[in-house]
């Protein structure tokens, strides 16, 4: 399906054949993208589809490897985000980019503060301007309050106000609603309609398809770094979007689980309170049996990563029972949990998974050095041979175990992190978004290894926001939304629509409560 190019809206910004190669991964390939004035241009795709890369290119944060950008018909090269901002392109990142130690007004005037005779900051005028902006957003937050003291939703409003503080022709919004309550979402939508009326072009990125159906005008679907489809939102349905996002090629269903063993992991009433009230993890109970692969499906912010962190002992405020092999691990240290057979492959491998300064071998053996130690000494020959075995078993593409781990591609780095966890001899493996930032081939290999492990009697939980992964690889799918388990499907009864509905169930429930 090709886009309806009926041009009742002028194209202000255009990407032509844009591509981006990072060391190890091709994030974006030959993508065309048109941004129209006075319209909401929606960008959707699964995690790793290349949305954020494209958005960063448009905002001037990174330079494309190939292709070019056209602004108002003229080719442009943005030197920096500031350069792009000068030319009328604003961006609201998904992660908040505010200085928590400064007041609301100071944050809003950070780039271009009003000055007296060009010397010192005119505080009164700064507060005035901030007040005006916040009133426009119908959110009269006191401009003198510290950002640190605001609720996340309010901070998001400040973030939006910050983007509006500069006069923008194009405003990029990356999942702007992920931290907002439904009332705040309504205000945001009102602001968006207001901006549309002022002929601003909005690029809107979201996972919440029902939101897109409400607010979007044009939609572009990315998949695996390529443009998959584009259309007018009024012409398409949620099912159409899901189909384009997920696709149907490549990943064959994996073999079904054999005989299941006893409960390997049992969680009872696990909760992680949120400082601002409510829960990241809301009274979760579940159990996983030996030889079973369970998928934890949910959108961003559903509490999946937090649940894993509670299980691994990274969240000291967590309460509840965590039993591995019949022993309660609540309150024990990370090394103790690893000794009892629990191990986590974290979501962000650069931040939590790899030691970038060490070799592949040293990364693989880091969690299991005890096994290679005699008296005080590391036995380097067994360390070397076992890491070589693991490299073969995980099919890690590397010329020697001594190569620095950063020289590997994303997929191979992920295999190193998984290999490291396997070397501890676990009985339960938690994998948080194991396919994030991993190319298609490596993705299939990772899931093949997971099935081998479950056949060997390990209990596996992986989290994903990718429908195809959830439906294709799990024996059982548990859906989380706002920290709660909202549905549970055995593999043969799970459907795409069922999963999508359950993943937003808690938000809808909240909305009903509010209205």
């Amino acid at each position, binding site marked *: 399906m090709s886009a309806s190019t009926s041009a009742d809206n002028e194209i202000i910004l255009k990407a032509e054949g844009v591509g981006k190669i990072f060391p190890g991964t091709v994030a974006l390939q030959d993508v065309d993208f048109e941004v129209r004035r006075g319209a909401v241009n929606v960008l959707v795709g699964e995690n790793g589809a290349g949305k954020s890369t494209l958005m960063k290119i448009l905002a001037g944060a990174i330079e494309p490897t190939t292709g070019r950008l056209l602004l108002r018909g003229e080719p442009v090269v943005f030197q920096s985000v500031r350069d792009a901002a000068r030319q009328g392109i604003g961006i609201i990142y998904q992660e908040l980019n505010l200085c928590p130690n400064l007041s609301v007004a100071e944050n809003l005037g950070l780039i271009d503060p009003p000055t007296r005779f060009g010397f010192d900051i005119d505080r009164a005028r700064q507060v005035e301007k901030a007040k005006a902006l916040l009133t426009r957003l119908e959110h009269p937050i006191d401009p003198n309050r510290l950002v640190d003291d605001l609720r996340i939703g309010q901070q998001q409003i400040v973030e939006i106000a910050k983007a509006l503080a500069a006069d923008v022709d194009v405003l990029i919004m990356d999942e702007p609603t992920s931290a907002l309550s439904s009332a705040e979402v309504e205000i945001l939508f009102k602001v968006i309609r207001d901006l549309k009326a002022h002929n601003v072009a909005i690029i809107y990125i979201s996972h919440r398809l029902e939101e897109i159906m409400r607010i979007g005008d044009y939609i572009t679907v990315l998949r695996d770094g390529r443009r998959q489809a584009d259309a007018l939102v009024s012409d398409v349905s949620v099912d159409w979007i899901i189909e384009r996002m997920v696709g149907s090629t490549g990943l064959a269903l994996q073999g079904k689980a054999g005989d299941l063993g006893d409960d390997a992991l049992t969680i009872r009433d696990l909760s992680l309170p949120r400082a601002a009230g409510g829960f990241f993890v809301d009274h979760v109970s579940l159990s996983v049996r030996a030889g079973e692969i369970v998928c934890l499906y949910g959108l961003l912010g559903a509490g999946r990563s937090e649940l894993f962190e509670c299980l691994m002992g990274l969240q000291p405020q967590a309460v509840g029972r965590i039993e591995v092999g019949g022993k309660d691990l609540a309150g024990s240290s990370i090394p103790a949990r690893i000794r009892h057979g629990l191990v986590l492959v974290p979501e962000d491998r650069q931040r*939590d998974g790899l030691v970038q300064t060490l070799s592949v071998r040293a990364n693989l053996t880091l969690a299991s050095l005890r096994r290679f130690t005699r008296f005080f000494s590391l036995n380097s020959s067994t360390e070397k041979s076992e890491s070589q075995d693991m490299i073969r078993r995980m099919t890690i593409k590397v010329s020697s175990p001594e190569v620095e781990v950063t020289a590997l591609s994303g997929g191979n780095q992920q295999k190193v992190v998984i290999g490291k966890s396997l070397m501890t001899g676990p009985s339960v493996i938690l994998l948080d978004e194991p396919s994030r930032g991993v190319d298609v081939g490596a993705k299939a290999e990772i899931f093949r290894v997971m099935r081998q492990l479950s056949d060997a009697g390990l209990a596996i939980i992986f989290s994903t926001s990718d429908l195809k992964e959830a439906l294709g690889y799990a024996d059982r799918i548990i859906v989380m939304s706002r920290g709660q388990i909202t549905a549970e499907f055995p593999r043969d009864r799970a459907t795409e629509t069922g999963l999508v509905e359950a993943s937003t169930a808690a938000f809808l429930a909240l909305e009903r409560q509010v209205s």
Partner: protein
Amino acid sequence: MTSEGLSAVKSGPSRRRLPLALLLMSFRTFIALIVVFVFFGVTTPNFLDVPTLVIVAKHVAVNAILAIGMTFVILTAGIDLSVGSIVGISGMVAGTLLTRGVPLNVFDVTIFPNVIETIGICLAVGSGIGLINGLLITRLNVAPFIATLGTLYIARGAALLISDGATFSNLVGDPKLGNGGFPFLGSGTLLGIPVSIVSLAIFAAVAAYVAGRTPFGRHVYAVGGNERAAALSGVRVNRIKVCTYMISGFCAAFAGLVIASELVAAHPASGETFELNAIAAAVLGGTSLSGGRGTIAGTLIGAFVIGVLSDGLVMLGVSSFWQMVIKGIVIIAAVVLDQMQRRMYRRFSLEAQLG
């Protein structure tokens, strides 16, 4: 280019294909050491004679021992500014034990520990200050720079308080008290080699073994390379950090003993600014202040470059003012080269990936 095509050629860089420039860069400190040796060998008569070299090595020994301890701390991405003060307090503790003993007023006697016990107590004091540093940093979340800056002042003040600022001289002990033999550490020889140089060799060998061949060493590198990933892999990050500060304190206390023994005197201001020399040696040897990168061998070479440079310049008759300028330039040049090498390596491995 397809993503499959990319991943197929994504084997890491192989050693064989390292370009010559990169190879030279990786041995830059060693090359620098050879250069300073050759330079002073040519320009300064007698510089390469054995007695001169022994004197240079003895001068290097103190800074190198400090730098070895410092390397462990810097590998965890920390810093230890207190080592100079530990040098001072260690000598002062030795001085007071050897000359005044431990007066036990209750029994109206004074106990004089023998030299071995004295050394043990001094090393315990140094390690104890390291322990305090470590606990401040890990339990109370004080930044390493601030925590060790604080103990720098405290330990220096304590060293001055011990004698009210006076120097303990003539630390030869008294045969009647059974505490003689202290000067052996600084001026004695083993098989014809000065004890301080033998000590340096032992410290370097043990440290290289601990850093390279033990789980503890690996954990130190992991903590410095990525603390979060190390913690998630079951590394007891806090314990590792505390241990590195204790090692640093231990090394500093030993260096203080060597100095006091060489001079046969303990001065409370001894060791001032030594922390900076130790950091310089480690950095010159390729230790990254952001943690995770560096070797004991590199630090040792770095300490020798600094030591040979300063002794050589003295023998050449270069004024001490110019010596400081030159030392500063060398340190900055070392770090600039380090960054250049890392950029070259990154570009090289990226090119190797893309085929």
